[in-house]
Structure formats: C-alpha cells, structure tokens
C-alpha cells in the first residue's frame, strides 16, 4: 500500500511531465519562428512578395504568423503556472520543505510576471523578445527535467520506505 508521500510524488511526477511537455512545445514553437528567421534569410517563404516559391518543408506545415503563435501559446501560460502553483501548495501543506524550497523560485518568478501583467506574449514585440523567451523556456525546461528526476527519486525512496515498514 502506497503512502501519502509516494502518492504526492507520483502526482508531482505527472504534473511535472505535463510542464515538461509544455516547455518542449514552447521551445519548438519559438524555434520554428526562429527557423523561419534563419531560413528566411534566403527568402524561402510563401508570402505576397514571393508568390511562386514555397520551401519544401513549409509546404506541409502551417504558415506560422506571430499573431497565431502568440494566441496559441498564451492559452497555455496561465494553466502552466497554475498547475505548478498547485503542486507547490501541496508541498507546503504537506510539509515537504526541500521540494517546496526548490519550487519557490519558479513560483515567485511566475507570480511576479502575472502581477506585472507581463506573462502573456505580445505579438507586436515577439520578434524583439524571441531570444529572451527562448532562454526562459530553456531554463524552465532544464529546471523541470531536474525536478522530474528529483520527484522520481523521492517517490522511489518513499516507496522503499513503505516496503520496509
């Protein structure tokens, strides 16, 4: 029979996996826009000015414009922060101080962004801030990856402890 601790860590692993996926998705979207940048240097893109030329890969992908990209990504930003917030809250009420401490910096970062009303992507600024967003996404990705293994480890430790009892 699993203890509450193991359950919690299992939940954490799952939630973390979701966040991890989201960050991967974000990074891919940013890179896609960026890929567009580098590739576009050769003008290989469908638009008004280049009526006939469509690069091969693009033919099978949607035309990503910054407005759609921002709208699409913006729908995930609040849920992502909320899920992470809930997890941290669970650590708090259950008194897992180490896990809480590890999560607090990201929580503070997210809260600050939302309070400053700077959490949503702005289509008018996206190209200037692409690098910043990408960096942020990468850092979050790394953080979640580390946390994933931490939760996994904690869960296994908890399970082993259950067994031994």
């Amino acid at each position: 029979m699993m203890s509450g601790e193991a359950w919690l860590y299992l939940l954490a692993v799952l939630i973390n996996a979701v966040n991890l996926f989201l960050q991967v998705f974000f990074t891919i979207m940013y890179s896609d826009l960026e890929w567009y940048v580098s590739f576009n240097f050769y003008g290989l893109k469908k638009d008004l000015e280049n009526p006939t030329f469509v690069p091969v890969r693009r033919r099978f992908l949607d035309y990503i414009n910054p407005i759609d990209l921002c709208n699409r990504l913006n729908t995930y930003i609040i849920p992502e922060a909320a899920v992470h917030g809930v997890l941290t809250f669970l650590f708090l009420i259950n008194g897992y101080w180490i896990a809480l401490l590890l999560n607090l910096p990201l929580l503070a970062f997210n809260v600050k962004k939302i309070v400053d009303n700077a959490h949503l992507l702005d289509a008018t600024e996206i190209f200037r801030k692409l690098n910043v967003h990408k960096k942020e996404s990468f850092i979050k990705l790394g953080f979640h990856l580390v946390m994933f293994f931490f939760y996994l480890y904690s869960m296994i430790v908890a399970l082993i402890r259950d067994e031994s009892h």
Partner: protein
Amino acid sequence: MAAPQDQYGQGYPAPDPYAQQSPSQPGFGTSSPPPPGGQPEEVGGKKKKRGYAAQAYDFGAGANSALGGQQQGGGQFQQPGGPPAPAYAGGYAAPQENAYGGAQYGAPAAVPAVGAPGVPYGAEQPQYGGGVGYQPPAAGYPGPGAPAQTYGMDPAAGGVAGITQGMGQMGVGGQPPAQAQQAAGRPAVLNQLYPTDLLNQPFNVAELDLPPPPIILPPNSSVTPSPDANCPPKYVRSTLNAVPTTHSLLKKSKLPFALVIQPYTSLHDVDDPVPIVQDQVISRCRRCRSYINPYVTFLDHGHRWRCNMCNLTNDVPQAFDWDAAAQKSVDRWQRPELNHAVVEFVAPQEYMVRPPQPLVYLFLFDVSYASVSCGLLATSARTILDSLNRIPNADRRTRVGFMAVDSSLHYFAVPKDTDENGETNMLVVSDLDEPFLPIPQELLVPLSESRLSVEKFLTSLPAMFQANQNGGSCMGSALRAGHKLISPLGGKIVVITATLPNVGYGKLEMREDKKLLGTSKESGLLQTGNSFYKSFAVECSKNQVSIDMFLFSSQYQDVASLSNLPRYTGGQTYFYPGWNAGRSEDAIKFATEFSDYLSAEIGLEAVLRVRATTGLRMSTFYGNFFNRSSDLCAFPAFPRDQSYVVEVAIDESLTKNFVCMQTAVLHTTSNGERRIRVMTLSLPTTTNLADVYASADQCAITTFFSHKAVERALSGGLEPAREALQSKLIELLQTFKKELAGGNMGSGGLQFPANLRGLPVLFLGLIKNVGLRKSAQIPSDLRSAALCQLSTLPMPLMMQYIYPRLYSLHDMPDNAGIPDPETSQIVLPPPHNLSSERLVPYGLYLIDDGQTQFLWVGRDAVPQLLADVFDVADRTKLKVGKSSLPELDNDFNERVRAVIAKSRDYRSRGVGSIIVPHLYIIREDGDPSLKLWAQTLLVEDRADQGMSFQQFMGTLREKVVQ
C-alpha cells in the same frame, strides 16, 4: 590625396575662427578672406562701412555674427575702437564652414564656395546695420566681433594665394572618383579619418547640413556607368558608409550598423518622380529573391546574370531586351533598373492576393460636448468638404464613410447622387458591446458616385450635433465597428477626437498624477493603459486597416495608449494640445495639415523587406508597422511622411569589396496599381577600424539611437533611456581614444573624427528633447506625442527636432530672405548654435524645431525693428503667443516672412510632411512661461535639470580621460 593630415590641418580650423588656441594656424588665415573675385566688393564694403557710426558696425559684428568661438570670449582682442571693416570680414564665420565641409569630405563643388559666400555677407552688413539703424542701444559694444580683425587683416596679402593652393589640392585629393580609380579591387583609400578636438574646436550647427561621408565604391562596381547607380542618401542612409567585414570589428568599433530608410521623400509623386519599369518584366534572383539592380554582373553573353546578394546565376528573362508595346528590341543598358538604384516596378498579377483595393477613408468624428464646443467637429467637416477634390481618386474608386461618436455610435447612410429623393440617414446604435452594421452597403460610398450627397452631409453635420451635451466617448467600440465596416476592403480609419474614450471597449481612465511626473513611475504613464489598444491594432494590421489619430483634448487624453493604434498599423498620431477653433492660428494649422494629409498619395496593403549580401542579416526594425515575420514589415497603409530604421547584423565575414542592401516596398498605389519600389544601396567594406569611423554618418547614428531611446523609454523608463544615450557616447569616445587616437590625448582634450563631431551635441539635444528630458513639468500626453515623433520623423526633420534651428533675423545677411538668383529658392540666414549667448538683447531671432517656431524679440529691440516687422510702435503692445506676422509693405518684413516660410518648407529638404508649425512670438521680458518654453529649445544652455553643453562635455571628458 597626398598628406591629407596636413590639408586637414589647414582647412579644418575654419569653423573656429576665433579659437585662441590656434590663432597662428595657417589654415585659418587662408580660409577667411574671400577669393580674388570677391575682393573688390570687400573693398567696397569697407568704404561703405567707414561711413557709418561705429555703433552700427558693432551691431553687425555683434554676438550673433560670431559663430565659432564665442565661448572663448574675446578678452584678449578687446579693441572696441578698431576699424570696422576687417573685423567683419571674419564676423560671419559661416562661409568658412563651407571651407571646412569641402576640405573634409572632399566634395569638389564646395571648394569654390569657400570664399564666395563671404561676399554677400560682406556687402550686407553696412546696409542693414547702418542704413536703417537698428543699432544696439548700448554704445560701443565691443563684442566678440572684434577679434576677427586680427585675422581679417593678416591674410589679406598672401592668404588668398594660400587658400587657392590649399583648396586646390584638396579638391583633387578628396575627389572620390579620382581616388577610386587609382585603387584596384578593394578601394585602397576610403574616407580619410580627420581627428579633431571636441573641446578646443567647438561644433558648429552648419556642419549638420553637410552631406554624409561619401560612399567610395571600387571602380566599375556597377554594371552601367550611371551616376544614379547608388541610392541617394535621401532615401536610404547607412550609419556606416564603410562596412566592417567581420562582426568582431563592428563590435570593436561600438558603432551601430543600421539603415535609415525613407522610401518616399514627398507627399505626392509629382514632387519626387522615380523611374518606373512599366513592362512588368521583373527579374529576380531565384534563391534570395533580390530584384535585378545596377550591381549584378552579366555572364554568357548577357544571357544570364549573377546575383550580387547571393552569387546565384539566374537566367535573363526573354522579354528583358524586348519592348512588347513597340514590338522591337530595346537596349538593355537603357533599362531603368540597371541605371537607377531607386526604381519602381509595376507588378503583375502574381504580386496580388486580391485585386488592388480602392482607397478607403472612414472618418470617426467625435461629437461629444468637448469636440463640438471647441469647434473641432465644424472645422474637420469643413476641411474634408474643401479637400474632397484633393483626395486621390484617379481611378474613381475611392470610398468614404462617416461615423459620429459620443456615448453611442452614429452611422450615416449616404445615398448615391443618382438617387432622386435620397436623404442621408443617421442610424444610432447604443449597443456598444457587439456593434453591428445596420446597413453595410450604404455606409461606405464611392466618392465619385455620391459626391453631392457627401457634400450636403458634411455641410449639415456640425448643425446636427450643435447642441450635444453628451460628454462620453465610446471610441473603442466605434473603432471596432469601423474596423468591421471596412475590413473586407481595408483602408484608413481617421479618428478625430477631443475626448478620452470613457465608455465601452477600450475604456481608458484618467491615470495621470502630477506627483508621478519626473519620478521613475512616470514611465508607467507612457505605457499602454488598456491592452485593447495593442490587440486591436494587431487585428487591424491583419485586415489591412490603418488608423490615424488626430487628438485634440485640452485635458488628459492618454496619448500613450491611443498612439498604439497608429504605431502598429502604419499610421501616425497627430497631437494638438489645447486646440480651439476660436483661435484662427489653431484652425488654420489643423485645416492645412488635415487637407495635406487627405491629399497624400498613400500606398495600401504594403510590405517592406530588406535583403542584403550573404553574411548580413536585418536584425531589428523600428518604426510604425507590424512585424509579420522576423524580416517582413507589414503596413496596411504606407505613409509618405515617415522613416524607418533597420539594424543590420553581420553573421558571417564579408569577403566582397562591397555589399548591397536592397529595400523593397510592395504596395498598391492610391490609384489602384500594384507596384514595388526598390532601393539598392551599395557600400564598400573595410577591415580597418579607422575607415569605419571616418565613414560614419552622425545624423544616421543619432536617428538610430533616437529610435533605440524611444524603445528604451517605453519599456524601461526615461532615466535608463537617457543614461543609455550618455554611456553610449562615452563608450564611443573611449573606443576612439583607445583604438585610433593612440590613447594619448595631449593636453587632455577629447578627440573624435570630424565627421562625428556633431554627435555629442545631437545626443545632448536628444537627452533634452521633450520626449526624454528630465523634468517634472511635462504632461505625459506631450511626452508620448514627442516619443511618437522621435520614432517616425524623416531624418532631416528629426535632426531639426533634436537640434532646432536658430536664425538671427535682425542682422541677417543681405541675400537672406530673398530668392537666390540661380535656384530661385529663398536663402536662409546662417544658422547659429543653440545657446543663449548667441542672443543679443536687441535682436530678433527665429527658433524652429520643425513642430513649433518661436520668434524671439529681445528685451531691448529698437522700435524701428518692431514697427517694420510687427507694425507696433511699442514693445509692450506686441502681442505674444500664438500668432502670425502681419504682411507689411516693407523689405524687412517681407524678408522675415520669407525666412519663416522657407524654414517650414519641407519639400526643398526632400521630405514629405504635413506639419505646419505654429508661430509663437516671444518677448524676452514678456510671458515667462512662453519664454521658458522657447528656452528649452536652446539645448546648449543649462536648463532646470539638464546640463549645459559645456557641463556635458566636461562630464564626458571626465569619464573618458580618467
């Protein structure tokens, strides 16, 4: 170009005629007297002068005539009783500025000009000073004019020969083609670096008018020998006219690499014709999509061409040498796209996603109490009525629509003229949440078909709302409704409002708090108050709707939020604080500007893209548009009075001798033709840091940093923006000192290349501009409006906005204010540096920043001057404030008016603009607030929280020399 350093030494000190530090420099003496041709007049002037009282002379040679070295004071030269004539030979330093220009940039044309301008100045003084007698009341004004005589006398004999010789050499040596031909491959000699000392050789404002350092391309780089093969600076200017080959060299130089692009230089095509390729044969590179241009190379007996951007070989289209209309072959070398760097292609079908849209104007009138009571509604309706003929309508497809807005929406269904008993119907909708279109068809009517009804409607419009007491404005909802109305076609929404939107969508609040001004919280007021204004702007851009804002409120109107709509849709914000139609000046200003605005031949559905030689990448774009992708700027409507800045990154090392950057603007003209305007700029590359500095363009650099500063001010706040500017300048000075001046500063001076000498004063002007100035007095609306200007103005106007023009009128030279016999353009007096030291108490000055003109009347102005110019007998009777000059029948009045009119003439400066500056008359002892306002334009002075130029230079020196 033998010993350029020496030549420079001779020619250079000219702008600094009184510099005590270098009184014995040969160059000075040589450049000061007029050339032999001018001498007889000079002598004549002397004789004439002797006839006048010393006072008269003093007046002429007074503070204003001393351009250069007044700061140094004339202490050691105080010779009040001295013979007048020689003194004034040096009194006007302006001609010597030309000498400097010629020497420095080696423009051959400037050489003969060295002495020539001196002649008219020479002849001028006695007439005005003595004849009419605007003497200063203070007798025996020793003035800094006196020192000049020292110089004036000595060169008389040998000087002339000296100058001819010196200048002759310069002319030959500095001539770019001559140099270029000697060089093989990479041009061996680019522009020469002329380090100058910023502290000892003060900057003169006339240097700002010099052309940028010439672009010296290797010989035969263009395929035709056309003189127009490279893009003229009025369309595209690069901050660096010699491009570093590697990213590390660019980084080392600390200079920015950016293009300042102004695709249109006038409001109407007539004023600025560009060669047009009519035959729809558009040859483009298959890979990089560049357009064929004068820098491609032809291979295989002219059957193929190699792209100068990416080196791919392309086939020359069959029709390239064939004139389909005349059915005969044409000479390829005559084709405009191979001869001109700026051409316009008529685009075929493939360049359209839909048939070219008609020009659409949807007017949103504010009919709330504030707007009706200040006469805005009546004036704007009247102006539109009067300007109906000026709205471009060559294809008879132009459509107009009208909506009125208070706390509800009013639609107007205008019937066709053919409709016998058609009446314009007003439909009122009070549902603001989901505004619907009652009858979509008749709300947007073709102007040609409904002309009479439109006229009738506009005549009756003011009366309809005459008694409106409604104080609300649901402008946000109105914009949504208007967007819905015109989005199938696209077009312009013209918002004319005097009220803060306070109902419905995009509701804004009075958020300005006087206590916040001047604090770090102020930047919050410059940011958008409601996200609606950003998201809606993006939506508009998507549907090819452009929005222009005409804002009139006398109270807080949140320009910061409202200006987002034009910013992302290729529009413009026009701000008229405290406007009232009761003042005729206000009414005339708005009516003239609005009428010009309606007459402008704007482009529609436009995109702008810049392509460049492999290795270069356009990294950041600044201006009013929306970035649809990382390198594509989208403009629902393309204005003709704005410029754009594009920062260029060097991704790979450049191996070629020269690089090309091609700007293409695909647009629909206002008469329904799809066209592509292509501008190809070619620049030499260099591996040498000195070349980079010697070819840097101070005006373009300032424009770039002005855009940067605006961005910084909006995101990070004003203080960081100002600090960034100052630290950038310090960084540049340090880099120059370390890398090029050998780290040794001699007597602790501040060295900088001659072509960048204006940078400190321009940066100071920028830091002290209304948009960025440190002050707790500037309402945030004014600031926001100024920031809009700083990020859109075309370069010549931007320079004037940052560093306004000061003309001295009471002692203007004889040829100023009258048409030049050769060009029939009015001649302006020489501009002065913006320092109150230049203002004498008995003077009359014009200070002009392009947005406002101030006519400054000194506190001791003589009655005769007032009578001649203003038709008042006494200074106290002079009406201060917004005003205009009376038209009097005397020579001086006519000339003053001519100078004022010329100073606001944009066309001659190669810019399109609708702005008609207000003229304010300022009495030095009059209304202190007005006086203070005018004084804020004197950027070299100390202001309440701003440094004077001397202090500024002192700070820079401390930071650099330490």
